[in-house]
């Protein structure tokens, strides 16, 4: 391809096919290099950001801010990314991008699987950035708290699940122990592993599953973050006899006032 004149519109058309179809974000500076190499001209920042803004305005791409900024192919209907080419060798999903699919799963299929009574309550909280800054393995990525009262027995039951999320290449036996360590504050520990079909990391699956079984940690395999049925429970967790005082202190620091009030109302039978 030889020298050519490009404007924001033509450049915008070039950006879209270069973005990964699975929605993996690409740094703005990386996209500029990719465009320069493809078009064989230096892409100046004003031209690039003009093209990017056109795509943002039309909703074809999304952006994430931060160091350098990133863009990604936008979802077509707000929940699913644009047409996914199956079996394409995709870029590994970073943990930050897996958080939202995991939240959707926990609030949907996982919660339904708990089969909670109608007068119960449950909440899902991103706890990855909450808790002591220096606490080792004290910040599960998500917690799910359920509260219910019994029909005949007095009192209430509160269950706290912790979820440790790992990327395709970031999971090892150590992650099982990380999930196990988090059960010093919770009742159920789960390891959630983004492990697509035919992933090279599948070689570690059997060993990790064995360790989960041995330590009573749940193992959830996230095969496809984009699919509604993309998660599969491979191992069920065993309820830990964590001291109520430890659980209480944990919830005190991880939940908002509204969430605590909601839980308290169910526990006290006021809902």
């Amino acid at each position, binding site marked *: 391809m030889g020298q050519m004149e490009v404007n924001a519109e033509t450049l915008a058309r070039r950006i879209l096919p270069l973005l990964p179809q699975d929605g993996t974000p*690409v*740094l703005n*500076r990386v996209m500029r*290099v990719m465009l320069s*190499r493809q*078009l064989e001209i*230096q892409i100046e920042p004003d031209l690039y950001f003009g093209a990017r803004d056109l795509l943002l305005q039309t909703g074809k791409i999304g952006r994430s801010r931060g160091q350098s900024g990133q863009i990604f192919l936008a979802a077509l209907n707000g929940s699913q990314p644009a047409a996914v080419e199956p079996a394409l060798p995709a870029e590994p999903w970073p943990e930050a991008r897996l958080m939202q699919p995991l939240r959707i799963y926990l609030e949907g299929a996982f919660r339904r699987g708990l089969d909670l009574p109608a007068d119960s309550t449950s909440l899902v909280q991103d706890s990855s950035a909450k808790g002591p800054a220096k606490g080792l393995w004290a910040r599960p990525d998500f917690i799910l708290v359920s509260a219910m009262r019994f029909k005949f027995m007095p009192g209430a039951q509160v269950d706290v699940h912790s979820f440790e999320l790992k990327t395709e290449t970031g999971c090892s036996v150590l992650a099982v122990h990380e999930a196990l360590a988090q059960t010093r504050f919770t009742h159920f520990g789960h390891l959630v592993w983004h492990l697509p079909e035919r992933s090279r990391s599948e070689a570690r699956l059997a060993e990790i599953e064995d360790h989960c079984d041995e330590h009573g940690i749940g193992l959830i395999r996230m095969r496809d973050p984009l699919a509604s049925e993309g998660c599969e429970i491979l191992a069920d967790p065993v309820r830990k006899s964590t001291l109520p005082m430890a659980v209480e202190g944990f919830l005190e620091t991880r939940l908002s006032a509204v969430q605590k009030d909601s839980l308290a109302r169910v526990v006290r039978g006021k809902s």
Partner: protein
Amino acid sequence: MAGKLIAVANMKGGVGKTTTVVSLAEALAADDSNVSVLVVDLDPQASASVCLAGDDLLFEMIKDDKTLDAFLDERLIKQEKTKLNSKIHKAVSATYHAGSPLKISLLPCGLDLRFVEREIIYNLTKKSFFTKGIEGQMWKQFNQEFLSLGKIYDYVIFDCPPRISTLSEVAIRASDLVIIPTIPDFISAYGLAAFVKFFWEKEMFGQTPKRLPHILITRLLTTVRQHKRVAARLEEAAAKGESPVIRLFRTRVPQAAKLADALSTMDDESSFKERYPTYSRKYGDMTLMLGQLAQEVKGVLNGI
């Protein structure tokens, strides 16, 4: 200002020619964002080409006949009016620095160069050209096409193969500066004198290289006594003006994993960031050394 032609050559293989070409091209481009650099790969192994373009882009260029061997084939064998500039991939660099991709272009080489060179010699021999005539044809092409690239690019860097091909011989003799990367060990230094004598004492079309040979010590291991001794011996020879007369760069290129990694960041397993690194991330603690080398090369070319 006319662009400068730099040939990086040594008959011995494995001395760091490609590493020198790629890292020097990036260092010159990073040193001044207004500078444009063209790398011309004269080695059929295409090492510099794959380092700069990566597998996929190089495959596309070879498929589209955007290579040096395709140019020579079309121009000298098929007698077409192909322009060399049409074979250059502009803005090839995947490395980013100070807000923009590095301004590096590439004239890649494919594996066919060795066959094309043979074919050219065969065709010219059929036309009753003698060796001098064949060399003359190459010299003419070089003057017509390569020298004019100096009007477009600030620096044109030739990655010569570890042998003396007709084309690399012309590039060495016509360049403004010849850099000879050399490992400071007995074997590498052994062939240096013969290489220097061949080019600097034997004329081709009444021409020897424009400047004295500049030795660049590469893959230096300061913990190896032989390396220190040979480096000291080269320094002494350069200082005393012993025959064959050489110049020695003050910059020493160490044996460093970071340099090896820098040339192999475009594999399929790497992330987007790793495939399109920033210059400082790519070279890490080697950036200071490369900056010094770029300054030194500029100093030599500007007669400082």
